[in-house]
């Protein structure tokens, strides 16, 4: 079980990670979700021992890892651009970690075949890695990391280089494999779809801090900041002024809502306008239709005031509409 306590790291004078603490339980997959440059890859490399934090410590089963060099940590790492050894074939790539553990040839042979089977690459043993497609290369990289049975698997944007269809396919395989092997995993990505698909728990990283944490459903239902709501694409984030009781005044109209935090009259508040029509709600947004965009089974309707909403039926452009909608208080 991995624990991080108060990891701090700055890079060229700029703070990159500010006081990061987290925990990964056995068999759990966590996703570190954040924009590029938020320091998530650096955090992975610190856990792997390839980089050092300025302060804070890393524990594995309550044992401090700070003096353990990377090759003794037993943490598998999968990179975005695969980082397969170009001078070795598929078999030798997957066998690399086993050779480093000084397994005998017989056992290496068996384990490589087994792992390649797990990632659906049976009979690829003697292929050159440079001849493989992107998806195949990523599977070899996964097999290479899985083969030595690491205590922890870490993924650094592993699907970033794949096209959309392939990404979905590999993502589903990955999900199955992680479930089957029960290896605890840390998955770093900037793509919320990937995070929602894979994660038991999501950690949102923003400006070097974990701003939000929870199961995917929890994070979507309770975005913990205006930034989180925007980053996850949960809806329109607008700001308003508290006027009285449960009422908030905004440039899009007045809304009635309950906030968890106590606000007094005149306070500024951030609101999330969920973009789905909800007939039971009392809040209404109004506006002229500026743009209608067909998306699978619904239409994304953008109003002239900038708000958007998903509707079952497409209204005409230029028409005034009013939609009942959920408005929530952020923070």
């Amino acid at each position, binding site marked *: 079980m991995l624990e991080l306590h108060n990891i701090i790291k700055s890079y060229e004078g700029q703070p990159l990670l500010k006081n990061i603490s987290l925990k990964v339980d056995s068999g759990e997959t966590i996703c570190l979700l954040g924009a590029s440059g938020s320091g998530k890859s650096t955090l992975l*490399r610190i856990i*792997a*021992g*390839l980089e050092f934090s300025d302060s804070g410590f890393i524990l594995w089963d309550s044992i401090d890892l700070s003096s353990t*060099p*990377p*090759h*003794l*940590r*037993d*943490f*598998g*790492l999968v*990179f975005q*651009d695969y*980082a397969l*050894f*170009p*001078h070795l074939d598929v078999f030798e790539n997957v066998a*690399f*970690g086993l*050779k*480093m*553990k000084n397994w005998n040839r017989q056992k290496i042979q068996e384990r490589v075949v087994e792992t390649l089977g797990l990632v659906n690459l049976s009979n690829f043993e003697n292929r050159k890695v440079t001849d493989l497609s992107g998806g195949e290369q990523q599977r070899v990289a996964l097999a*290479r*990391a899985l083969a*030595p049975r690491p205590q922890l698997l870490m993924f650094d944007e592993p699907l970033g280089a794949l096209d959309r269809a392939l990404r979905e396919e590999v993502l589903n395989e990955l999900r199955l494999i992680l479930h089957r092997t029960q290896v605890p995993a840390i998955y770093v990505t900037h793509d919320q779809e990937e995070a929602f698909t894979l994660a038991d728990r999501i950690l949102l990283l923003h400006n070097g801090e974990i701003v939000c944490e929870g199961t995917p459903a929890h994070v979507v239902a309770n975005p913990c900041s205006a930034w989180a709501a925007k980053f996850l694409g949960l809806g329109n984030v607008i700001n308003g002024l508290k006027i009285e009781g449960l009422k908030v005044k905004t440039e899009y109209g007045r809304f009635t809502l309950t906030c968890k935090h106590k606000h007094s009259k005149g306070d500024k508040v951030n609101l999330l306008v969920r973009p789905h029509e909800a007939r039971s709600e009392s809040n209404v947004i109004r506006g002229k239709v500026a743009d209608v965009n067909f998306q699978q089974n619904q239409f994304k309707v953008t109003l002239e005031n900038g708000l958007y909403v998903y509707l079952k039926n497409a209204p005409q452009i230029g028409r005034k509409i009013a939609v009942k909608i959920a408005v929530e208080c952020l923070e």
Partner: protein
Amino acid sequence: MPLPAVNSVLSEVEGQNKACPEPGRRVKGRGLNTRVLIWFFPLAFLGIFFFYPLIRIFTLTLKPSLLLQADTLHITYDALRFTIYQAALSTILTLLLGLPSAYLFARYDFRGKSLLRALTAVPFMLPTVVVAAGFSALLGPRGWMQTLSAFFFPLSAPIPFNFIGTFSAILTAHVFYNTTIVIRIVSNAISRLDPKLEQAARSLGADSRRVWWHVILPLLRPSILAASLLVFLFDFTSFGVILLLGGPGLSTLEVEIYLQSVKYFNLSLAALLSLIQLLCTLIFSILYTRVTSAVTVQTAPRSISSNTRKPHNGRERIFVFAFYLLLITFYVLPLISIPLRSITRLEADRGQRGEVQTGLTTDYYSELFINRRDSVFYVPPIQAARNSLLYASATIILSLALGFPAASALVKPTRFEKILDPILMLPLGASAVTLGLGFIISYGRLLTNPALVPLAHTLVALPFVIRTLQPAIASIPERLRQAAASLGASPFRVWQTVDWQILRRATLSAATFAFTISLGEFGATLLISRPDYPTIPVAIEKFLSQPGGLNYGQAMAMATLLMLLTITCILIIEKLRLPGAGEF
């Protein structure tokens, strides 16, 4: 020094900045006649001054009686064995210094890095005589180390420095010359290695030793092999270093060719040795080309700069500091010794057997302007500088005049012209001494004519000139010419406003190349120059081989002049290098 196989370095490098030929680009309306005219002079020149002398060498060798002599076989075998032995040993030593240095440059950031890198590259362009003079000034019997040891141990007999004339002197000078090749090729390869491969290996349980053994070294192997072959080739054909720093019994093929032709007048044996030498360089060049075509290093997707960093822990700092110091010492001391020695009197001069005067002096420089009757020359030594400059200017004019048409024709070659390209590069494969020997054999009667020297220099410089001009000419987009023409420019105005603006830098760069090569050329010049028309390198060699403090001081003064001239030229070439152009 004449550099065979540099053409491969050059072509490899300039391949990178060669512009893609534009679709639909046509050869300008040159008829067959124009093409013939373009090729006539370069090819006639090569035919008369390169191929004809080579053929003469071959025919001279094909005497069965020569081959059957036991003496011949003995000398040939000894020379070949020693040549290979010293080249192999030099290459290993060069790798020992070069590989860690390459790692230093590829992985670490430190103050003065680019300066240090430039410093290590300086010897490669320096004339051999200057390098030899440098080691002599530092470690020779009249050098600084000798003086310092006499100063610090005045009572005991001074420890004699038996460095000059030893095998170690040759090896040291070769390392001095060629380390930059290893540094450039291998550090380039290291910095192009994806750091994630290393990280992946470490996360898979490899300690740093195994990361090196199983990942980094296998990936660098082609580059290391290529660098080694190139270094070996240069060491194999090295002439000046061995003649000037070596001693009796230390005779390579090159030196033996020189000795046999000039000292023993055994031209047929010299020709046989030349032939063997030529075959060997040919084999190594082919090997090198094969190896470089196999160089494919996993390239890092990020920019190269992200791979370098400041040294982190104590061990890294010690490594960086130690190599920094080592390289600085190794490269600065021999070079700085020359100018310092040229203004310092360390021993008795002529006619001062008794008291030894030491101190600063400008005598060595002023002596250069005096024609002493018992001097090595019949003319004031400074004449050598005048000759060198004259020869160099002639070389510039000649090599540009021949190089321009050839280079522009090679930009868009016909099938026949594609064959001509390697033929034009061929003089690089022949050693300078062989070139000189060919001149002696073919044009012995004309040797009294000083014009032969710039002709030989042009042979050596022409491939460099062509390889500098060709990519520049190729980089001119046809669209620019068309645009200028459609805006109303006459053909001359087009050339003036488009072509010349782009070619100016390349032309100057090519001219400087020719100038530098001519200034420093030693092997061929030594064979064909007349004693009353010496060049600077020949004069330095003559001074160094004469006894007496004054002669030695004058050698240092001359070497200082030559060094300053050459370094100025190197700086100009560096400045003119097209942005984005590769190494060398």
